[in-house]
């Protein structure tokens, strides 16, 4: 049997390989030093140098656990193979070293922060991996597919190269489709002064347009005053945040929030996406000088909780197949929405079988942190790197779970691959899918 970790070293990524052709050790050292002078401080030094190699982080990492506890995949091991060496050698490393560092930082760490939770010193290894990714960005050796996504953000302000007319056309198409079910239903575009700006991520108009349809049904049934913009700024996602292109991250977040300000909305309600929440609520806003999101941001979990609890939407008949719940890292560990998620799931589903560990102790889907966005070359490394999640899903299935609820786009992508590859045989749904299915819907809103 081949060693999976060895197989993983043979993966070819055009972005890393071709980018590295332009690199020299001198260039690496120069860029490293410039970055250390300008952007690194006590935080990075503390995180890298305070590690006592206790190994508690290892057991927290799904990559480590899934790759037979190979220490190369432990969080501390990833730091020791990348930033620790860079700091020890003051950036005097080879091109081959940096290629491997790019691979480790971008494809072996989901930035899920589970390890930070178990570290006795609270060392944030995700921060260190992001620093390595930024260095790789500065050196031009980011993986090809996620780099392409960051470039899409830079041009279109969305992650899927969706052109301005295609976006509006998608909204109008979904509005027409929804009107066949509910007479008079609107997706109000550019309605200045609406209470809510509903923001989504690039894949929704591109591949999952039914989610916009379903959201429109929910907003209308709840009688809310909402809108979606007809301009760039509609996409809340952010892969530039994960390549370390912080300047583009800031630029696209500015567009997003200034779109909300232009529309004079009171809050942004965002679709079921985890990483976008991290960008809007933490990294993107703060890169611009906003301590908190300048316009209030509500994640869908919180929003659905609010609608169901207040009775604004009513459940006609609960979803019958037994479900299990996947906790997306960015909105659970990052925001603490796990109890609200459970309130919503129990309100809409008859039977719930939990995966364990769960809530803030959940295991990542292995797609997050931009890992799935590194594309086809890295797919099997990612899927094999989460046998832990596969086992969790199998366990839940053995207790009757037929459907996994995952309120996050990247989690969907990752879990879909895990379910398919491991032949788990489980449906995967967003909260919106189930709410749309079980809610009381008006025949007409005219």
């Amino acid at each position, binding site marked *: 049997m081949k060693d999976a970790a060895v197989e993983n070293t043979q993966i070819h990524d055009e972005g890393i390989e071709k980018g590295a052709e332009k690199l020299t050790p001198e260039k690496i050292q120069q860029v490293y030093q410039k970055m250390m002078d*300008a952007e690194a401080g006590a935080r990075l030094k503390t995180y890298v140098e305070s590690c006592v190699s206790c190994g508690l982080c290892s057991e927290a990492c799904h990559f480590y656990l899934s790759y037979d506890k190979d220490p190369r995949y432990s969080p501390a091991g990833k730091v020791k193979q990348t930033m620790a060496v860079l700091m020890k050698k003051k950036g005097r490393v080879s091109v081959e070293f940096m290629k491997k560092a790019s691979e480790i930082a971008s494809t072996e760490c989901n930035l899920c922060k589970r390890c930070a939770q178990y570290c006795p010193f609270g060392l944030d290894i995700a921060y260190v991996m992001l620093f390595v990714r930024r260095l790789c960005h500065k050196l031009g050796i980011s993986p090809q597919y996620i780099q*392409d996504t960051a470039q899409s953000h830079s041009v279109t302000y969305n992650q899927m190269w969706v052109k*301005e007319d295609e976006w509006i056309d998608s909204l109008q198409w979904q509005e027409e489709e929804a009107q066949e079910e509910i007479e*008079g239903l609107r997706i109000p575009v550019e*309605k200045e002064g609406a209470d809510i700006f509903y923001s989504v991520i690039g894949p929704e108009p591109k591949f999952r347009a039914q989610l916009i349809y379903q959201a429109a049904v929910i907003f209308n049934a709840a009688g809310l005053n909402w809108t979606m913009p*007809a301009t760039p700024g509609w996409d809340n996602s952010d892969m530039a945040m994960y390549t370390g292109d912080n300047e583009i991250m800031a*630029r696209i977040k500015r567009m997003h929030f200034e779109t909300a300000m232009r529309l*004079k909305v*009171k809050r942004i309600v965002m679709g079921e996406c985890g990483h976008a929440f991290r960008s809007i609520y933490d990294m993107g806003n703060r890169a611009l000088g*906003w301590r908190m999101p300048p316009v209030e941001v509500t994640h869908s979990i919180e929003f659905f909780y609010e609608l169901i609890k207040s009775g604004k939407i009513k459940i006609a008949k609960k979803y019958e197949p037994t479900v299990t719940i996947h906790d997306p890292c960015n909105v659970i560990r990052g925001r603490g929405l796990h109890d609200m998620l459970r309130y919503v799931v129990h309100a809409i589903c008859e039977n719930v079988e939990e995966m364990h560990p769960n809530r803030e102790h959940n295991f990542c889907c292995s797609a997050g942190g931009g890992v799935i966005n590194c594309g086809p070359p890295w797919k099997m490394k990612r899927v094999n790197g989460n046998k832990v999640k596969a086992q969790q899903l199998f366990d839940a299935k053995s207790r009757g779970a037929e459907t996994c609820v995952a309120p996050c786009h990247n989690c969907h992508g990752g879990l879909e691959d895990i379910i398919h590859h491991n032949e788990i045989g489980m449906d995967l749904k967003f909260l919106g899918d189930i709410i749309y299915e079980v809610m009381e819907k008006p025949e007409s809103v005219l």
Partner: protein
Amino acid sequence: MDISSSWDWNAGRKEIAQFGNWPTSFDWVEEPYASPDGEKIAAVVKTGEMEFSVCVNGTAWENPFDKVWFLRFAPDGRLTGIVSDTGQWTLAVDGEAWEEKFDYLWDTHFSPNGKSIICAAQNGMRYLLVNNGTPWQTAFANMGHTAVSPDGSRTAAVVQTEGFKEAEIFKFQEGCFSVAVDGQAWGRNFVNAWGLTFSPDNQRVATEVRVNLYDYTIAVDGQPWPTTFPSIWKPSFNPTNGSVVAPAKTPGGWTMVSDGQPLWNGRYAQLWHQMYSPDGNHLAAIVAPKYGHWTMAVDDKPWARTFDDFVTDASFSPDSKRAACIGVTNKRHHICVDGQAWSEGYDMVWAPVFSPDSQHVAAKVEKDGQFTLVMDGKPLKNTYTKVWDPVFSPDSQNVLLRALEGSGSDTIYTRSVLPLNKFLG
């Protein structure tokens, strides 16, 4: 001459339309829009199966369309809506569709005098701008960031001039985007180009560009500054000497640069939305003097009053001596004039408007779902279902209130000219 000088400025209230009745005539009535002079109210309405029109003061346009959206009044009072008919899209102006039709059309812009109406359009997946119905001669693979010259005669956009395949990242990094002015692309490509601006004489165009993945600068008429920065925002032309200024990121923080050289001494956590005063003698911007603290700076001097959430909608008075903005702290929206915030906070505030004599500032505000106007910190006695932005009379003695009064089927659209003493002291 100011467009508003020909409007009816006689004091008094006029009932224009029984807006609340419209749903009895149409299946579907969308949110209404009021004309700048207040004499008309209009909304997209459904007139039949898959048939839409626009109702103005109770009467629908004669010709219906398959779809109407983005209804907006031009500054000169013409009413525009983006319309489709048999799968083709164009703009209808006061009910008359442009002759030219497109596979798609969107992003309506107006020149300040209202004479030019500009839209983005797509034909056969090629993109172009359309000015008063006349399309550019050249179309591009992609397009964005529409800009219109001050006189409305010229248009510009960021365009894609080189093709690249999916995930062809290194081709992209060679530079595949440029700026087209009146359909003619600059002869030079960039990795990215973003916000565009025309010079006051309509002759020059400046834009923020990324020359590689890491270096940002300003390009003027296709020529980038020799100096680059780690990041940059949209530029402005200095109306007095033609130089170009932009907020640029430097190692010490954000600052204002002119033609690539530092202009301001201050270094800010953030700096954007700069604007020249009408006389061109002052330069102001929205700034964060410290992380998480927002205000306006005029000529590099930040106001002492700062806001925690954000600052937006900054403007100069017509005499160039005063400035105003909206500042938000803990979701309460305040109007701030010359560094002094009005005491009352609101759920929402729209852009503050100076009187022509620069003595007064008024704005539309929202509190608890009701709307009214506020002038110099004093609100009107009444609140309304909806109001539009205030307009001062040319002599600065009156304010035009455009409002929806009442609710449900009793909702009436009114136009009132109010003397300034109607605002409560």
